[in-house]
């Protein structure tokens, strides 16, 4: 495989594309080492790594899949750490009234006014699982469940709101920040859902000697700034 | 109703430029392979849009390149018997036969299904698919389909070419009746001398896309020089009644007041026959021949004399009440000094009237 000395192959959750593209470019400029990043769903990437994909570094959007790989002895456990965090937010169309505090008293059904609540798959995709948990803990899930439109990934939920097809949606703060067509309505309190964490680790048998350097670079200031600018929670460790 | 055709059409390497009139009755299109017969028929049917020209039937224009008229095929009410069958593979024989009836106007005269099926001998095939038919069976179904569609014009492109002699002899009388009974023009393509002679009212001879000869059948057929068919095709039909069956296998037929001998064992005494007497089988003698193998020596008188441009002549004679035709040479006309009114003997072999040329007068009703 042409995993040349000067190249690192990074498998990263699709939602990290913007950040990793920018950080990789910086890294290449600094070290001369090329970074090839493969973006897809965390589940797909994890399975590929399980089956011997030539990845050096894995950035997952969920701890579950990283756990799965660790359990199967496909990553170097010692290199694993939590890179960044994220927040879960409720969004609506742009140019709406200011954000509010979401609580057990929030009447989501009223706010939906017959429309749909856009979420990622609530039993499968991390953003959807987090959202469902949060709503459950707030006691809102029972009432709103029939109105939920589930998408195959969080980005599609964002699109539904962005296009006006759904009046409300639950996505990550980073998504909400990047899309001008949506506005932030509420941020779910951290205690309503498990921490949203993007773990990273070296893949077992990583071929590129520069992979560790890239891992280190991800924790550096330059990378932190990129993540922070995009709305990720940095230093969650 | 008369059909009037004037067409120009070009294929790469072939130019059609033909005009002719087809009055009621059967107009035979005759010409060598590739002379443009099917092309003309297709244009009449509306399947080919000619480059130029005019086609009308009676007062109705079917096609006119000047006025840009082109009546679609489905509105022309034609019964087209295709050179290559073209049966519907997904329909049974019965459905194929009935197909045209679905679209015929209510007012159109219906042909009798049973009768046509019977004549064509396809009754046992009615529930079959066309793929399971023999070549000749297919062709017979195609004939039936066209005839049953209540057409106001029939186009028949070599309809009988694939059929055996006996079957032909069963179907030809039907066309004869169509010709005589219905007032519709029939355009009929054939290479067969027998068919042309028996059926043609009018003959149109094509050569390389051009009409080289057209006219009433009698005139064209009696001209030995015009086509290869001229020599073999003239003849008359004669009606008679079986008078006796002789023990040596010969049948005696009374016709027009005279006795004829011929082999026709299958017909019982008293039944009515029609016989085709071909002009070239008739010899004329001014002296009664003796000790000759010909069994039929009929006294007659010359009725008309028509000399061709070539060596041939067509002599019409009255034998009893029958008018017969004899094709002889001009040299013989002179040698025997034949004139209108000359008494002669028509000499005719018994075997010259082959069994095939014998049919009931009304084959089936």
């Amino acid at each position, binding site marked *: 495989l042409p995993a040349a000395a000067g190249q690192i192959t990074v498998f990263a959750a699709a939602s990290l594309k913007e950040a990793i593209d920018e950080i990789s470019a910086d890294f290449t400029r600094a070290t001369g080492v090329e970074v090839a990043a493969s973006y897809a*769903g965390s*589940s797909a990437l*994890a399975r590929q790594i399980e089956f011997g994909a030539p990845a050096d570094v894995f950035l997952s959007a969920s701890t*579950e*899949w990283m*756990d*799965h790989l660790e359990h199967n002895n496909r990553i170097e456990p010692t290199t694993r750490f939590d890179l960044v965090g994220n927040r879960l937010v409720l969004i609506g169309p742009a140019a709406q009234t200011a954000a509010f505090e979401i609580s057990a008293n929030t009447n989501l059904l009223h706010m939906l006014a017959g429309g*749909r609540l*856009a979420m990622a*798959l609530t*039993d*499968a*995709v991390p953003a959807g699982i987090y959202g469902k948990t949060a709503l459950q803990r707030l006691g809102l899930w029972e009432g709103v469940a029939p109105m*939920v*439109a*589930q*998408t*195959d990934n969080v980005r*599609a939920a964002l*699109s*539904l709101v962005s*296009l*006006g*097809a759904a009046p409300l949606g639950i996505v990550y703060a980073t998504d909400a920040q990047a899309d001008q067509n949506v506005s932030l309505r509420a941020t779910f309190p951290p205690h309503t859902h498990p921490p949203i964490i993007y773990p990273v680790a070296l893949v077992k048998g990583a071929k590129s000697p520069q992979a560790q350097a890239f891992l280190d670079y991800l924790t550096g200031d330059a990378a932190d700034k990129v993540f922070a600018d995009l709305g990720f929670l940095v230093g969650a460790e | 109703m008369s059909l009037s055709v004037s067409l120009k059409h070009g294929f790469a390497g072939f130019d059609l430029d033909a005009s002719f009139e087809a009055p009621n009755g059967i107009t035979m299109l005759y010409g060598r392979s590739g002379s443009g017969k099917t092309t003309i028929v297709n244009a009449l*049917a*509306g*399947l080919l849009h000619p480059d130029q020209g005019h086609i009308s039937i009676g007062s109705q224009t079917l096609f006119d390149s000047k006025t840009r008229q082109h009546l*679609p*095929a*489905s*509105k*022309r*009410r*034609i*019964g*087209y018997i*295709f050179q*290559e069958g*073209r049966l*519907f*593979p*997904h*329909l049974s024989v019965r459905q194929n036969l009935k*197909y*045209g009836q*679905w*679209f*015929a106007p209510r007012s159109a005269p219906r042909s009798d299904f049973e009768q046509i099926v019977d004549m064509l001998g396809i009754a046992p095939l009615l529930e079959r*698919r*066309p*793929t*399971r038919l023999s070549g000749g069976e297919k062709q017979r179904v195609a004939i039936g*389909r*066209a005839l049953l*569609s209540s057409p106001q014009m029939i186009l028949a492109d070599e309809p009988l070419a694939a059929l055996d002699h006996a079957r032909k002899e069963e179907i030809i009388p039907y066309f004869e009746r169509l010709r005589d009974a219905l007032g519709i023009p029939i355009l009929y393509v054939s290479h067969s001398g027998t068919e042309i002679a028996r059926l043609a009212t009018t003959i149109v001879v094509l050569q390389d896309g051009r009409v080289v000869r057209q006219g009433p059948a009698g005139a064209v057929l009696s001209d030995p020089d015009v086509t290869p068919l001229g020599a073999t095709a003239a003849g008359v039909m004669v009606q008679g009644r079986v008078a006796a069956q002789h023990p040596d296998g010969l049948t005696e037929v009374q016709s027009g007041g005279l006795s004829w001998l011929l082999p026709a064992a299958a017909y019982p005494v008293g039944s009515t026959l029609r016989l085709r007497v071909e002009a070239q089988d008739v010899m004329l003698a001014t002296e009664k021949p003796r000790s000759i193998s010909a069994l039929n020596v009929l006294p007659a008188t010359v009725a008309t004399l028509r000399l061709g441009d070539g060596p041939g002549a067509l002599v019409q004679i009255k034998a009893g009440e029958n008018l017969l035709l004899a094709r002889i040479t001009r040299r013989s006309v002179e040698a025997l000094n034949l004139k209108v009114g000359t008494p002669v003997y028509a000499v005719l072999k018994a075997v010259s009237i082959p069994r095939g040329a014998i049919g009931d007068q009304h084959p089936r009703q």
Partner: protein
Amino acid sequence: MDWLSPQEWNAVALSLRVAFWATLCSLPFALVTAHLLARGRFPGKQLFNGIVHLPLILPPVVTGYILLLTFSIQAPVGYALSQIGIVFAFRWTGAALAAAIMAFPLMVRAIRLSIEAVDPKLEEAAATLGASRVWVYLTVTLPLILPGVLAGSILAFAKAIGEFGATITFVSNIPGQTQTLPSAVYAFLQVPGAEGSALRLVVISIVIAMSALLLSEILSRRVAARIGAA
């Protein structure tokens, strides 16, 4: 069968319904389109041909996204349709629409190939027997292309059973309303260790589609026998 949860049963039933209506409703359009492409001569035919094939070329997600842009209530088309009572967004009808559009090029191709195989001489013969163009079509062309239409429809049905990307993008995944089998399968695949559950649903998809295929083989063999081919 208690090895399927009620929600999974719903998904099976919905997939069948979606695929059935997707196939049935696109059939007339596919016939017309195939006919235009096989026989028609009009300006922009190549463009039209291209547009028909778009769903095949585009990643399904993009198709779903375009559908969303066009048929959501916010969009002019979607709004206009909703005024006459036709709503696709977040309904099973939307899933059917997505499946129909994804399967459309397959159906059209199959029908078109069979139309091109029909001998125009037979249609001419029908015309001489008095059949107008519509009747020629109904009594000659259509019966002759029936095997192709069958093949195309079953292909479309199978595709509709398996369609996922465009459907979930367009109408999301609302259990009991738009959650088809593939969405359910996808969901299981996202969860580590749930491959077994996914497999069950995959097997069901396969059984359904295979039955449809088998049916189509039997039907088209019967049709072919009637037509007398091979």
